[in-house]
Structure formats: C-alpha cells, structure tokens
C-alpha cells in the first residue's frame, strides 16, 4: 500500500498536465479523464522506473498524447471527426457564430467585463469552441510541437487537410478574439 500512496503523490504532481494534454486534444472532459486514467495505469505498471526519473513528465505527456490520438482515430467514424464531406467542415456556421456572439457580454458592460476577463481565459474558451478536427490539429502543432507532416501521419489524414484545418483554426481564433475586441498583438 505504501507503493500506492507514493503513486498517489506522483499522480497529484502530474494529473493537471496529463489531463490538459488529453483535454486539449479531445475537447471533452469525460474522454480526457478516461485517457488520463489509462495513462496513469500504464505509469503504475512502470512505476519502479518512473518514480525517481526526471523524464517521467515527458514520458507521461507522450503516453497521454498517444492515447488521445488513438481515441480520436478510433472514434472518428462515430462522430465524423475527419469527414471531408460537407461545406460546414471546419468552417464555423453562421448559427454557431451567432451562438458565440450570444454568449458575449452585453455591449454596455463589454469594456468592464473584458477588463475583468483574463486574456488567456478568453483564448482558452475560444480554443474550446473550435470544431474537433481543427482543435486537434492546432493542439498537436502548437502544444505538442509536431510538424504538419507528423500530424498528418499520426491522424492518418492528408497533409493538405491538416494545413487547411490549422489555417481555419487560426482564422476562427482570430475572428473570435476580434469579436471580443481582443488583439493578441496589442497586449
């Protein structure tokens, strides 16, 4: 049991990082928790080697990322993750854009609330609202540091699709930040 209590401390140290990696790729807290649990189960099987290893964090991050990618590719048919059909793919629909606008503070309170909202929180929320296909590609590029080619290979889609998804994700982020009168460069 002392092994388990030690492992509990290990989990406390890394749980936010593991959960965040999975959450940003999957965009879903429940799936991210499943992936995080599986990553820690694997870590427990190798705990003898990981407990005092300074590379444990990197190992966990890679395992969480791979498990999340496996989850995405396994269930892509179920939720049409990489469907290349339909004009709405990757493009924010007017209805979705209106919904986002509707969630914004009222104009009269806008400046006061914007001052209160942390700019990173705004960006995080905008990231959350990206379509799954764009968010996963963007997260693998910016957070995980993979190249376009690596992302295409890992997600088993074409290079052109990845470039398009990342371009669209950046466009959507910029549009949404602009909708909040928020400019990254102006900060």
């Amino acid at each position, binding site marked *: 049991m002392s092994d388990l209590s030690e492992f509990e401390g290990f989990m406390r140290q890394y749980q936010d990082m593991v959960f965040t990696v999975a959450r940003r790729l999957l965009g879903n807290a429940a799936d991210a*928790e499943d992936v995080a649990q599986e990553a820690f*189960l694997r870590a427990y099987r190798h705990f003898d080697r990981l407990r005092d290893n300074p590379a444990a964090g990197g190992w966990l991050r890679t395992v969480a990322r791979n498990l999340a990618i496996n989850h995405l590719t396994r269930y892509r048919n179920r939720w049409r993750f990489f469907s290349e059909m339909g004009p709405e793919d990757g493009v924010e629909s007017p209805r979705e854009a209106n919904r986002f606008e509707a969630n914004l503070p009222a104009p009269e309170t806008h400046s006061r609330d914007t001052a209160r909202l942390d700019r*990173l929180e705004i960006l*995080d929320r905008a990231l959350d609202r990206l379509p799954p296909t764009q968010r996963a590609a963007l997260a693998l590029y*910016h957070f995980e540091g993979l190249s376009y080619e690596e992302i295409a290979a890992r997600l088993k889609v074409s290079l052109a699709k990845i470039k398009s998804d990342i371009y669209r994700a950046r466009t959507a982020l910029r549009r949404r930040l602009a909708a909040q009168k928020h400019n990254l460069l102006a900060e």
Partner: protein
Amino acid sequence: MKPEEEFREPEWTAELDRALKSLPLRSAPPSLIPRTLEAIRKEAARGKAAAGWLAWPLWARLGSAAAAIALLIGLGFALQPLAEAVWASLAGPAQTFAAHAARLFHAVRNLGGAVESVPLLFLAGWGAALWLCAAATGSFLYRLLLSSVSMSDSKP
C-alpha cells in the same frame, strides 16, 4: 488582404503560439485520482493467475504443463472408439455426396457445351436485356425507397 494571406503574418502566428503555450493547465477533475487508484486495486486483485502463465512459479508451470499433456493423451485414448464410430458413420454420406457432386459437375460441363453452340450475338442480346431489366428494377426500388424516406423525414 485576402483571407489566405491573413495568417501568413508571422508576427501574429508567433504571438498566437506564445499565447497558446502560456495557457495555464486545466485542473484535473477530483475524481481522477480515486478512480485510477480503484482501477489499480482491481487490476491487482485479479491475482497472479490472471497475470499470464509465464508469470507463474516454475513448479506451477511444470506441473500444469505435465497435467495438460496427460489430459490430452488420456482424451486421445478415451475418444478413439468414438472417433472411429464417427468416421464410419460419415463414410456412407460422404460417398453419396461425392456422387452427387460428380453428377453436378457433369451437368455443368454439358451446359457449358450447350451454351457454346448458341450464337454469340444472341447471348449478348440476352445478357443486355437481363442487365436492363435489373437496372430498371433497381432504379425503381431506389426511387421508391427515397420517396418513403423523404416522406418519413417530413413528418413533424
């Protein structure tokens, strides 16, 4: 500026990259650690028997291997009369089946010879007529199916 050129702005992309990388970590749900510990306990409770035969102690591996071999040999001896009886009962039907298969083979060969004697043009015409009938029937059924689906979709 065209939309495609918008994000070729390296400053903005670099700033976005920096901003994304500086996002704070999300807090893991409080249930993550308890459920992981529970899963670890369940996995451990399955015991060494579930850990695979190679993980068993040497004496257990040798004993179980000897028992398995003895069981197979014993079963072989015990089931030998049964196997002979089954084989004998299958011999008659197998001969009958072989005779039927030979007759079918001859019939198919004769049919092939008969078809060869029919003019090629007639065969082609017959094939085209069959194809047209099949295509028309398929198209009709497809349209029928589509109309029924669209009717059911239009219901409130």
